[in-house]
């Protein structure tokens, strides 16, 4: 049972975090994600990298929060990150919906004005 080489997961975690950060970086560079929406992704990517480099951080955080099993602290941070990013999306979507509604209304009103003017000039 206890024959796991715990160093192994650390290497995977470091590699995973770096690949993740590079992936986000490329997406931003290629303008697939706007800078302002990449901040949360990059922030949590860096946190994961730090945690994988210094495992003590996770253990100390678990002690501080009273978590018996340190990986749970990791999952807690992960869920927190996902929540924050999803909330950000809800805000962005609500904002877009409002702006879309305003645009559709404005186009409708303007089209009517244009038609009215065309009729007058005929």
């Amino acid at each position: 049972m206890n024959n796991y080489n715990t160093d192994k997961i650390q290497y995977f975690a470091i590699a995973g975090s770096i690949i993740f950060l590079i992936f986000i970086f490329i997406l931003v560079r290629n303008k697939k994600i706007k800078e302002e929406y990449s901040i949360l992704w990059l922030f949590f990517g860096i946190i994961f990298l730090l945690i994988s480099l210094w495992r003590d951080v996770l253990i100390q955080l678990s002690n501080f929060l009273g978590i018996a099993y340190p990986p749970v602290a990791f999952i807690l941070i992960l869920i927190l990150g996902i929540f924050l990013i999803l909330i950000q999306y809800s805000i962005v979507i609500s904002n877009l919906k409002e702006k879309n509604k305003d645009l559709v209304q404005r186009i409708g009103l303007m089209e009517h004005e244009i038609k009215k003017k065309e009729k007058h000039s005929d």
Partner: protein
Amino acid sequence: MKILIIVPAFNEEKNILKVIDSLNKQNPEWNILIINDCSEDNTLNVCESTDRAIVINLCSNIGIGGTVQTGFRFAQNNDYDIAVQFDGDGQHIANEIPKLLEPIINNKCDVVIGSRFLINHKGYKSTKIRRFGIKIFQLVNSILINQKITDNTSGFRAYNKKALHFLSDCYPTDYPEPESVILLSKNGYKILEVSTVMKEREEGKSSISGFKNFAYMINVLLAIIMNSIRPTIKQENCNE
């Protein structure tokens, strides 16, 4: 006195001409504004075939709230004194409109709601499940604004200039009818109800049906409570 009848229409090709006819017959002086919320049927062509109505076409479907708000914006831009909201599905009756106009013309209030439940009459009163929901809105809204509004979901309403300018900026778009009752009342607009009769819709389907009723009720209650805890809006900056 310039009066605009705002008629939101979504897939109402079978009803809309009758609606225009009845409004026109009732009073040819009224301007009728049909707002087509990107219908998938022939509503737009049917409306444009008659010259008795002004037609605004929305290029994307934005829902009843945004559609009616387009009407308020039109009314504000063209300096109308009164706007009447009148459904495009034929359930509202044109000769009931003067009843809604009277309190506004005589300066008794800012908003008039045509209510099916104010006086017990034989007209159409919706299905049993919906009446239950309507009762709950009645109770909640009455507690929140300290005034008993019997028909919070009625879309048969009249607004004076002040109220329509206010709503052209901040009309709620999710569940506009019950939400706007709270919004208007909280911001100091005086609401009055008059008893009106309504018909069952003749053609087409209502926008809310079946199981959606329950979800609708929960969503509306949430929206109502949110509206009631929002700070009052200053006229100049009420655009979210």
